C-alpha cells in the first residue's frame, strides 16, 4: 500500500515536470511568495515612511535623469518608493487571496460534503442557496457584503471568501456524489463504519483533487477581486500597501505624466494572477484529465 502511494506521487511529480505551463506558474508563484516573505530584507525603502517625504513625490525611476537613488521604480504621490510598496504589497495581496480562498474552502467543503453525502433536504437547501448566490456577479456580491459588514481589508477577505463558497460547495458536492457510489464506500458501509469515518477517511481524501485545482484557480480570481475592492476604496485602506489600493491612489496622476505609480502595481497583479492561472490549468491537466476544457 505504502509503495503504491509513493509511485503515484512520483508519477504526479513526473507529469508536473513535463507540464511547462504548470512549472512556469509555480515559479512565478514561488517568486511572489519569496518577495512577500523577504519584503523586509529586499525592499530598498520603507513602504510608508512617516512623516511622508512629500518633497520626493511622483519622481520617476531608473529610466529618467530625475530619478532618486534607491527608488528604482519611482515614487508615488506621497513620495513613497513604488518598488518597496509593491514588495510589501505582495504580502498583503497574496495573504488576502489565501485567507479568502481558505474561508471559501472551509465553508464550501463543509456544505458540499453535507449536500453530496446526505442528499435529500440538506442537499436541496444548500443547492438553492448556491443558485441564488450564483445570480450575482462575484464582485457585486462582494461589494454588497462589504456594504453590510463594512469596509477594510479583513472584511473584504471575508466577503470574497463567502462569495466563492458556492462554487467550492458545488465542486465538492459533485465529486462527493460520484465517490459515494463507489464500491469501496459500499464496503465501508457494509462493515459498519460510521458516517463521519467514511467522510473523513474515504470521501474527503478522494475528492481533494478538484478542490486543489479549483482552489488554485480561485486564488487567482480572489487576488483579482481583492485588488478590485481595494481599487474601489472598499478593501484595504491607506496607508496599507495593497496593489489595488495603490492603483486607485495613483491613477489620477497619469494625466500629469506620472505613469509609473499606476503601471507597476497593476503588473504585479497581472503576473500573480497569470502565474496562478497557469499553475491551476496545469494542475488540472495533471490531476484530472477529464476536466480538460
Amino acid at each position: 500500500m505504502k509503495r503504491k502511494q509513493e509511485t503515484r506521487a512520483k508519477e504526479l511529480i513526473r507529469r508536473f515536470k513535463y507540464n511547462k505551463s504548470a512549472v512556469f506558474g509555480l515559479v512565478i508563484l514561488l517568486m511572489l511568495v519569496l518577495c512577500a516573505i523577504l519584503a523586509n530584507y529586499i525592499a530598498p525603502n520603507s513602504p510608508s515612511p512617516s512623516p511622508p517625504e512629500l518633497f520626493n513625490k511622483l519622481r520617476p525611476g531608473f529610466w529618467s535623469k530625475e530619478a532618486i537613488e534607491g527608488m528604482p521604480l519611482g515614487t508615488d504621490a506621497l513620495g513613497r518608493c513604488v518598488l518597496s510598496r509593491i514588495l510589501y504589497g505582495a504580502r498583503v495581496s497574496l495573504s488576502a487571496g489565501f485567507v479568502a480562498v481558505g474561508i471559501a474552502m472551509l465553508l464550501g467543503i463543509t456544505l458540499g460534503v453535507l449536500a453530496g453525502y446526505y442528499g435529500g433536504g440538506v442537499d436541496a437547501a444548500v443547492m438553492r442557496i448556491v443558485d441564488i448566490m450564483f445570480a450575482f456577479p462575484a464582485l457585486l456580491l462582494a461589494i454588497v457584503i462589504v456594504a453590510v459588514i463594512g469596509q477594510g481589508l479583513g472584511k473584504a477577505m471575508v466577503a470574497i471568501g463567502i462569495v466563492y463558497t458556492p462554487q467550492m460547495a458545488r465542486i465538492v458536492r459533485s465529486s462527493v456524489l460520484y465517490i459515494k457510489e463507489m464500491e469501496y464506500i459500499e464496503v465501508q458501509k457494509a462493515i459498519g463504519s460510521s458516517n463521519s469515518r467514511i467522510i473523513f477517511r474515504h470521501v474527503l481524501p478522494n475528492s481533494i483533487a478538484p478542490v486543489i485545482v479549483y482552489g488554485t484557480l480561485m486564488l487567482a480570481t480572489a487576488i483579482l477581486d481583492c485588488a478590485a475592492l481595494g481599487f474601489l476604496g472598499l478593501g484595504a485602506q491607506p496607508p496599507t500597501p495593497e496593489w489595488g489600493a495603490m492603483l486607485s491612489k495613483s491613477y489620477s496622476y497619469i494625466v500629469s505624466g506620472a505613469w509609473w505609480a499606476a503601471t507597476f502595481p497593476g503588473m504585479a497583479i497581472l503576473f500573480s494572477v497569470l502565474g496562478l492561472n497557469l499553475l491551476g490549468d496545469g494542475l488540472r491537466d495533471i490531476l484530472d484529465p477529464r476536466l480538460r476544457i
Partner: protein
Amino acid sequence: MLVPVLLGTSIIAFSLIHLAPGDPARTIAGQHASQKTINATREKYGLDKPLYVQYGIWLGNVLRGNMGRSIASNEYVTKEILHRFPSTFELALSAMVLAILVGSVAGIISASKQYSALDYTFMGIALFGVSMPVFWLGIMLMMIFGVFLRWLPIGGRMDIAISFHRITGFYILDSIITGNMAGLLSAVRYLILPSIALATIPMATIARVTRSSMLEVLRQDFIRTERAKGLSERVVIYKHAMRNAMIPVITVIGLNFGLLLAGAILTETVFSWPGIGRYVVTAVRMRDYPAVQGCVLFFAFFFVIVNLITDILYIYIDPRIHYK
C-alpha cells in the same frame, strides 16, 4: 428556477438594510436626522412591524416599481437606476459585440491552424486576457491613447461642448434619431476605450472556448466525410464546423454577459462612465442602502433574464434541445 432565484435575491436585498449595523430607521432617514424624523420614518416604512410583514410591504412596493428614495439624492431609486441603465447597457452591449466578434474569429482561426504561430500568439494573448485586472487595463488604455497619444478622450460619455438631446438615453441611438452627427462621433469616441477594457476578459474566454469546441468538432467523422467529399476548407469550417461548435460558446457568452456587469463596476469607475456600476460603488461608499438594494435587485434581475435568453437561444441553435 427563475422565480425562486428572484425571490431569494429579493430576500438578500431586503435583509441588507437590517443586517447593516445600526437602526434601519436611522439608516433610511440619514445620519443627521432628528429623532422626530426617525420616528416618522419608522412609521412610514412600517419598521416597527414584524420582519415578515415588512418584507411583504417592501416586496409589494418593489413589484409596483417603488424601491424607495435614495438617501443621498432623495430621488426615487427606480428613477436613478432607469436613468443610468441605458449608459451601462450601451457600454456592455458594445463590449459584448466586440468580444464576440474578435473572440470567436480568433478562436476559429486558432483551431483551424492548430499549433501554428498564429494559434500560439492568439492563445498567449488570451491567457493574458483572462488574467487581466480590468481596472488596470482601463488605466493603461487611458494613459496610452488618452494621455500620451491624445487620440481618444479619457473619461465621460460625451463632449460637454456638444448640444445633445436625450431621448432614450442610448447616446448613439439618440444621435442617430436626431441626426446629430457631431454627437454620434463624440459618443463613439468616448465609448471606444471603456468598451475595449470591458471586452477583454469575455473576449479571451470566448476565444479559448471557441478554439477548444472547434477542435472537438473538427475531429468528428462528419468533418472528415465533408473533406473527403471535396468541400472547400472554408465551407467545412465556417458552415459546418462552426455551427456545431457554437453551443458551448453561447453558454459562455451568456455567462459572461452577467460578468460584464461586474466588469462594468470597475470600468465605469475608471472612465467616469455615468452608469449603474459606478452608482452602486458610490452608494456603498455613502451607505445609501435603498440605492444599494435597488442596484442589487436590478443586477440580479438582469442576470436572470440573460440566462433565460441564453436558454431560449439554444433551442434555435440546436434543434435537438427541447424544453417540455
